[in-house]
């Protein structure tokens, strides 16, 4: 397995398990018809410029919210749902970079932004898909180089 495949797998599965008590399984599926209404992205500033993005359907985010907050999704205010999405991405991104980079290599990431278009073209993007319950979640990472070794 390539380093970034392993990093992506660990980042998503650990985050969903520890934050939301949910299991995520990597899949090779055509997600073109999937309704991924919720997107969030943050920029990687160091050690190299890039972007980390997640996309998932509203129903999955609501399910995660129910587990995290312990309340029915209907009772949640929209700001709380969006805050959850931002925190989910922030945690996945940090875990991904910790796993990918050499030990103790510092990194710097930006703040999560919701509903923004991709910062980089698809040719610079690597995507992974995960099945969580009956839904799909996509993680994508774009950067100028695959080589993060210092």
């Amino acid at each position, binding site marked *: 397995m390539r380093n970034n495949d392993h990093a992506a797998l660990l980042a998503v599965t*650990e*985050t969903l*398990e*520890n*934050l939301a008590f949910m299991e995520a399984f990597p899949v090779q599926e055509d997600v073109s018809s999937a309704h991924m209404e919720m997107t969030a992205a943050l920029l990687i500033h160091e050690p190299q410029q890039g972007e980390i993005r997640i996309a998932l359907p509203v129903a999955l985010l609501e399910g995660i919210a129910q587990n*995290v*907050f*312990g309340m029915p999704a209907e009772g949640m205010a929209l700001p*709380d749902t969006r*805050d*959850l999405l*931002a*925190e989910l991405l*922030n*945690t996945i*991104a*940090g*875990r991904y*970079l*910790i796993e990918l*980079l050499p030990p*103790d*290599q*510092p*990194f710097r*990431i930006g*703040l999560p932004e919701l509903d923004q278009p991709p910062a980089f073209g698809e040719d610079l993007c690597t995507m992974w898909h995960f099945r969580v319950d009956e839904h799909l979640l996509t993680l994508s990472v774009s950067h100028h180089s695959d080589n993060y070794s210092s």
Partner: protein
Amino acid sequence: MGKKVLIVDDSNTMRKIVTRSLRQAGLDFEEILEAGDGLEALAVLRGQKVDLILSDINMPNMDGLAFLREKSADDSLKSIPVVMITTEAGNDIIGEAKSLGAVGSIKKPFTPEQIQETVGSIF
């Protein structure tokens, strides 16, 4: 335990997750207080006695490192133990936090066991 803990994080989600993890870890605090950034945290600390602080690093208005600097400069606050909860991995950030008085750090995503191990060792 009869103690109070202050959770400092700009994310309402993360404050709830930390609260949940403290309870799942069996750490029975008398009261769990919350603040959205370092400035709010200082206001809380100057109003009541707190026994432990769990703080994020990246926050608006006053980030975790600036909060540590302000806290350590206040004789009435500097002895309160602070544990940083963060996505940061680099030794430079955590090292700076410890030089400013943080007693430990926990990386996200964390388990209740990791919270228990770090916080339990303080008390």
